[in-house]
């Protein structure tokens, strides 16, 4: 059901891990539903200089987290917010219909990490 591109990314995901001094962290999902996506962002000025992820979930969840973090690195916050789950799916050459929600989780986790960054900024 997965295409070769998805399997390849799943097998060798980029950006897996944590950023200990991240400027924004976003977590979406919960274990009882079978999916947790956690995204760490390092932000300098208004640019995302590094992104990492940790995922509890299926192969599609891991692959979309890898692609989504790849996509946001080097982007400004506004550019990153414009990245849609459909862009991640397109990059992967498609996902089975029941797996589209995994790509939504990646988008939501990036938004949550940016929200976290902004709320930290507002507190300063």
């Amino acid at each position, binding site marked *: 059901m*997965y295409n070769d591109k998805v*399997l390849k990314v*799943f*097998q060798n*995901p980029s950006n*897996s891990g944590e950023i200990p001094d991240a400027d924004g962290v976003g*977590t979406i999902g919960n*274990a*009882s*539903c*079978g*999916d*947790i996506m*956690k995204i760490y962002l390092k932000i300098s000025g208004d640019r995302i200089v590094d992104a990492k*992820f*940790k*995922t*509890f*979930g*299926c*192969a*599609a*969840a*891991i692959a979309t987290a890898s692609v989504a973090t790849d996509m946001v690195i080097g982007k400004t916050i506004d550019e990153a917010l414009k990245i849609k789950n459909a862009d991640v799916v397109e990059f992967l050459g498609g996902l089975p219909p*029941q*797996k589209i929600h995994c790509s939504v989780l990646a988008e939501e986790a990036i938004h949550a990490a940016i929200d976290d960054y902004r709320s930290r900024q507002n507190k300063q």
Partner: protein
Amino acid sequence: MRVYLDNSATTALDNDALKAMLPYFTEKFGNPSSLHSYGREALRAVDESRAKIASLIGAKPNEIYFTSGGSESDNWALKGAVYASKALNKHIVTTSIEHPAILETCEYLERKDGVKVSYVPVGKDGRVSPEAVKAAVTDDTLIVSVMFANNETGAIQPIKEIGEFCREEGILFHTDAVQAMDSQAIDVNELNIDMLSMSAHKFHGPKGIGVLYIRSGVRIERLIAGGHQERRGRAGTTDTPLIVGMAKALEIAVQNREENNRRIAALRDNFIDRVLKEIPYVYLNGGREHRLPGNANFSFGFIEGESILINLDLNGIAVSSGSACSSGSLEPSHVILALGVPEELAHSSIRFSLGRDTTAEEMDYTFKVLKETVEKLRSISPLFDSDKGTGSYV
């Protein structure tokens, strides 16, 4: 290396069974219902196969009804019994761990026909207690349906005790024995079974053929109307090659049963021991006793089952998972949840089902790849700290 550890899903067709089948696709192609020599030649093969299958389960040939497989047999047993009954109130007793072919048929009968159904729960070991089944029976109970052995946990159910009770009470007793035919000694009289479902492809027979055993004297309505095949029990042109293949495969399975069981169980036990000892946060789903010899089912803490399955598959190892992600549904396996396993661990369940062709070398390789897979996925999991080697769901 390719390793097939999904023998509960399906098995490879036995070579001798295939050889027995081949002539009935081509030169002996006759319709067993035809009166001429072509038909008689095919009918002879069907009759012999029917007699063979009957003798292997202690039944009479005219109690064997050929169907398209386990699902049809399950549907027919329950719907047929309900539709043949003139009782005003009809009640079915079954378990919470049945195959969807039983559970969805029960839901259908509840919805369409106002039948009441009791779903008896199981213990941590995946077994129903005969007492709980007895307690669920009412004056209206028409039929009790309890699977012989579960497809996910391999838990073998107390069929003898339940059969005895049903016989004393005069209640029909059906068992879905799809997972049990190759490894369990089954005599329908000794076990007081009134109806039994089987499916050939689970014991190295062909796909698309099964049996519903119906004890003589038991009246059930037919589901597939049409011709007079199967003593007017099930219409449809008799599939000679598949029937011949099923009979041959069952004969071979029963002949080698004890030897296969011993060998497969030894490989499986060694595998379970190693996994529980050498991989942390692993839980065996179901008990170690009363378990099909080829079944091992684990939950792996802090990682998700489908990603384990895919990573094993990328290394050539075929297994199945109770995770919602792998089935396309939103809920994880109803069987694993029925054991009292929390949802997050049900999502991480993996079934290894060994078969007659499984080797020690394959299991060594599987263990090695499994250990690496679990470590790799835990290193990506937000619930696990690989430096400390500990995890938490909160």
